[in-house]
């Protein structure tokens, strides 16, 4: 495949989509959430168990494209063991990165690279999810990697932290 596609369909992403590590369900989840894209029928369901104010386990059932599956799996990986507050903060950062407004002085690639590599102080890192940020340059696909985060939001909607 050609250069920029390689960026988006990074080997890590494609591998993760083919062999997700966190696919499946949990027998007795404490929280559940679902994200749907009615325009293409894609869907992610999250099962979450808690230990106090921490996420202990996450599993996802995803019907979607490679980006969506990888995003769900990477979410599960990143947030396992996380505090609920931190989980929300990671989600906020993830969304903000996806739609960050353009700074015309920089090339888009420079800009994204900078923001991804140097998160401002106190802001949680995206960890292994960074390869997903290439989707910034494929606007129509942003919805695909956001879907698991929509599911997370639903799951956390009724939990007070």
């Amino acid at each position, binding site marked *: 495949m*050609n250069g920029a*596609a390689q960026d988006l*369909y990074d080997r890590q992403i*494609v591998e993760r989509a083919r062999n997700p590590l966190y696919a499946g369900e949990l027998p007795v989840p404490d929280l559940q959430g679902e994200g749907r894209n*009615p325009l293409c029928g894609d869907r992610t369901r999250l099962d979450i168990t808690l230990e106090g104010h921490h996420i202990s386990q996450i599993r996802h059932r995803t019907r979607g*494209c*490679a980006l*969506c599956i990888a995003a769900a799996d990477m979410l599960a990986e990143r947030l396992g063991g996380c505090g609920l507050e931190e989980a929300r903060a990671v989600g906020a950062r993830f969304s903000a990165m996806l739609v960050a407004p353009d700074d015309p002085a920089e090339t888009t690639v420079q800009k994204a690279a900078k923001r991804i590599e140097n998160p401002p102080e106190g802001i949680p890192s995206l960890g292994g999810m960074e390869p997903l940020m290439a989707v910034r340059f494929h606007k129509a696909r942003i919805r*695909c990697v956001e879907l698991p985060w929509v599911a997370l939001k639903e799951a956390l909607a009724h939990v007070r932290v």
Partner: protein
Amino acid sequence: MNTDRTLKAAPAGKLDVQAVRAQFPILSETVHGRPFVFLDSGASAQKPAVVIDCMADAMRHQYANIHRGLYWMSERTSEAYEAVRGQVAAFLNAPSHEEIIFTRNSTEAINLVAHSLGSLMKPGQAVLISEMEHHANLIPWQMLRDRSGVELRVAPITDEGDLDMEAYGRLLEDGKVALVAMTHMSNVLGTVTPAREIADRAHEAGALVLFDGSQAAVHRRTDVQALGADFYTFTGHKLYGPTGIGVLWGRRALLDDMPPFLGGGDMISSVTFEKSTWANVPHKFEAGTPAIVETIGLGAAIRWVESIGFDAIEAHEQALTAYALEKLADVPGLKVVGAPKQRGGVISFTMADVHPHDIATLLDRNGIAVRAGQHCAEPLMRRLGLHATTRASFGVYTDTHDIDVLAETLARIRDFFV
């Protein structure tokens, strides 16, 4: 790539594809550093230079608001606008140019009928559509149902993607169906429906019939009288014409009886605060300043299509579709959706283990534009047991090279994922 566009002969018919391609400026663009391969004409076609130039020329040299204007620029612009009505009537073989109503697109044309004819329908009557309708020919009838208590019936399709004619007949039996509203060609399956038979059966059961010709009118000669249609719609941007312009044709007697849809200037005969009376058709249905330049551009598009001729267009697209079906059959894991009796230049497919979104994005990185998703036909997707498909659709400028590049790239995408 070992295929070379310039050295290949046209696949069939008398159409010189390379000469046609040369008339579309956008086809020389590159995308991600690759030559642009456009296989999404079913969503919207590209525009030949004559259409672009015609619109620009109108705005440069001969433009003013139409009707009412007692000066040269307005009279000439009105003439140019009204002349397109005559052209469209000839294009559809409609009995009269007064039966041609200009709308924004096919969607608005169908909504116009749903509102105007719909306001004359009563609870107890029904509208009959099919399982393979585009949302444009489904939602307006749902909204009518919810507004007025008219029943909405859905004729099933066969597993091959043809209308189930027996079931269709049964749905007409009780005589309650007031209108059959059906696609003349599916934008997902490519199915060309047996319009004449659909119309005859509808008429026998006392129903009127509307055909959504958004796809069909692009690929074949349309004769609304031979089809036995009562209403027919199409949309300019798929016919190599401008955006913002569509057409509703309806039989004069029906249009005369229908109340207006939108109110405003140009659709009235006289106005007082108490009561207004309406202009004659077609003006009754054209409120406000129309898409003047776009209508003139549609005229240029129709002239251009007719200069090539539907014999050549249909032969070209049929040969190309056959070629594509063959080529795609060789791609490992690829499954074409549907096998209708008659297919226009539209092929939807799935590829095992690779999601249509991934296919579309990876094709795009190679310069190839296709559509992926539900194609504004969500209930059809459900009927087919699919969540989404990838769709390649062809136009008069599509050549075998485009197909070759598509098939090769699909094979490489498949390798990438498996």
